[in-house]
């Protein structure tokens, strides 16, 4: 086949680009082939993935180009991409277009069912639209899992001259990239979801607050907003760039940041649904929640709610990351076990060593040990074992990791990113880091000058033992968990306590009865 008649599909997702997709695309163009830049399939270990008439090659380098064009390159040929087990096993609703469409093509979007949800919403009216989202059982995909329909109903019922739709695209959790993939790969779906939300609750303005670490996503969104302005009118929306503060992923902190203030958390109540952005009723939804809405409206609430288990309905885009052989985006109905995700789909660790633990739900999520791999992916099942699904990110660690180091990092991260408004988070995280440092150095804290003064007769007489320090750490975690204003300080104890519970030997202590821990 002559090169110019061959159409090559390569992703222009930031991850593919970081792995060298631009160079591969350029090499194909130099060889005379036509290159079409599409969204990513989400099989990230194969990026840059080259697709020719449905057949995939990956990971490809510019040096592979002549062989691929000549019909060879058997060593990186993966066969039909859509039939690859990693894709075939998924139930893709939010990521139905992944790998198949050009992200900024309005033509591709409309041809694959785009804008159907918005048309249907306009047909059935605002109230029925809210009811549809409520009936779908959709829960906030950002982490808290609050029913999206209830939030919408509250805003719809509020009276105000101006209401807002705010999309939380401050995806700061390590191991999460689903929001980024939606924004870069299918931006019109997010825009459609926001337009539906605006129509349903009577909001005419929307903001997408995207983190500054995602320049590719911001560029795509801005282009997509310009191209689709006429379709979503009278709804007007705008991208706002964050400025490197993790805590701005917390909704009230995000609202302060949008208003041009320090990203400090607000006390609730008032809830943002009643007094949100600039004091007006505001829907704050995660990218994945809003991106699920067009499907719910187009296919009906029941079709969506038929997926899933218990009170976790629909599908969850799960992100497999860290030391994993087959990392990427795996969207499936709730209920899949952690073991299936890590071992069967993910193929175990990349290093080939045994899995020691996995962190589910980002930096504020608990570490789970392999003996917990039978837990189904479900909000309630995770809550029952003091863990959380969060934004659906899974980081796999092999047996070379020191879990006490990871616990220390959780505290260090919290100290670096705390907004400083509440004391348990601001001071607790710093003291927690110092405390774990002492535990790791096996150097318990002795009495200081003040404690040796005669009037300090209640102060301890002896140097603390390692066990005393552990008890102190547990106490501190308890205080942070129940005393912090938001999830940053409140959930940092999850990784710390779970590491201590499952891997006490890394802290230099023997395993203890579960009830004395956590």
């Amino acid at each position: 086949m002559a090169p110019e008649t061959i159409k090559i599909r390569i992703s222009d997702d930031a991850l593919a680009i970081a792995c060298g997709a631009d160079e591969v695309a350029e090499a194909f163009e130099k060889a005379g082939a036509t290159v079409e830049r599409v969204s990513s399939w989400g099989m990230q270990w194969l990026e840059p993935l080259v697709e020719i008439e449905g057949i995939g090659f990956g990971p490809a380098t510019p040096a592979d180009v002549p062989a691929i064009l000549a019909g060879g390159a058997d060593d990186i040929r993966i066969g039909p991409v859509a039939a690859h087990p990693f894709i075939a096993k998924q139930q893709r609703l939010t990521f139905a277009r992944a790998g198949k469409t050009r992200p900024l093509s309005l033509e591709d979007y409309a041809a694959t069912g785009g804008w159907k949800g918005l048309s249907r919403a306009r047909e059935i009216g605002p109230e029925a639209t809210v009811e549809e989202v409520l009936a779908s059982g959709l829960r906030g995909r950002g982490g808290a899992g609050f029913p999206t329909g209830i939030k919408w109903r509250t805003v719809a019922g509020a009276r105000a001259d101006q209401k807002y739709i705010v999309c939380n695209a401050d995806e700061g959790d390590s191991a999460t990239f689903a929001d980024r993939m939606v924004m870069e790969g299918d931006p019109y779906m997010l825009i459609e979801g926001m337009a539906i939300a605006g129509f349903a609750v009577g909001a005419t303005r929307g903001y997408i607050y995207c983190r500054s670490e995602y320049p590719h996503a911001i560029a795509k969104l801005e282009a997509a907003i310009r191209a689709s302005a006429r379709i979503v009118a009278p709804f007007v929306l705008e991208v706002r760039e964050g400025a490197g503060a993790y805590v701005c992923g917390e909704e009230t902190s995000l609202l302060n940041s949008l208003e041009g203030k320090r990203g400090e958390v607000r006390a609730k109540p008032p809830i943002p649904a009643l007094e949100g952005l600039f004091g007006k009723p505001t829907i704050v939804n995660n990218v994945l929640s809003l991106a699920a809405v067009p499907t719910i409206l187009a296919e009906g609430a029941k079709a969506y709610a038929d997926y899933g288990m218990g009170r976790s309905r629909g599908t969850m885009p799960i992100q497999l990351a860290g030391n994993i052989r087959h990392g990427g985006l795996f969207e499936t109905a709730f209920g899949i076990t952690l073991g299936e995700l890590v071992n069967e789909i993910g193929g175990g660790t990349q290093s080939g060593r045994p899995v020691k633990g996995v962190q589910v739900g980002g930096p504020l999520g608990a570490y789970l040990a392999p003996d917990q791999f039978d837990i189904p992916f479900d909000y309630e099942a995770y809550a029952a074992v003091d863990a959380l699904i969060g934004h659906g990110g899974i980081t796999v660690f092999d047996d070379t990791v020191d879990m006490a180091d990871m616990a220390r990092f959780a505290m260090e991260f919290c100290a670096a990113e705390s907004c400083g408004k509440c004391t348990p988070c601001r001071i607790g995280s710093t003291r927690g880091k110092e405390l774990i440092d002492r535990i790791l150095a096996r150097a318990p804290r002795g009495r200081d000058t003040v404690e040796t003064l005669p009037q300090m007769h209640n102060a301890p007489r002896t140097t603390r033992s390692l066990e005393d320090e552990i008890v102190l750490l547990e106490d501190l975690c308890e205080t942070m968990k129940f005393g912090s204003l938001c999830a940053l300080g409140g959930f940092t104890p999850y990784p710390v306590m779970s590491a201590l519970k499952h891997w006490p030997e890394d802290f230099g202590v023997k395993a203890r009865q579960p009830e004395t821990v956590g």
Partner: protein
Amino acid sequence: MADGQSARLDEIIADHIGREGPLLPILHDVQSTFGHVSEEAKRQIAKALNLTRAEVHGVVSFYHDFKSAPAEKPVLKLCRAEACKARGVEALVADAQAAAGDRVAIETIYCLGLCSVGPNAMIGKSVHARLDGAKLDALIRELA
């Protein structure tokens, strides 16, 4: 602040002042135009937005992206969050620091959203994945 800079700052302020919550967009433009947000810039922005200088300073100092002084050397941001740690970034840090010396600043960033192909780094707006010692070293040498 030189007159030319002050005029450019006025333009930036004028571009955004009609928007809702204009402070962050203004600061982003100031940061990318001048490389930092100076004391004079804080005063000029505060005056235009009817804020106190302290309020503007409070916002500038809160966010990692805004700097009060210009960067003295090129910056490489290395992700050291959990997923990159799981993929071995910590083992690269000492050599990277040595290669950077005092010519390149290696800053820590938490997560670029490329968590299955780490260790990852960002230079300006370009992202780099699957780093090992040699690749990271090459990136640092390119900057120096």
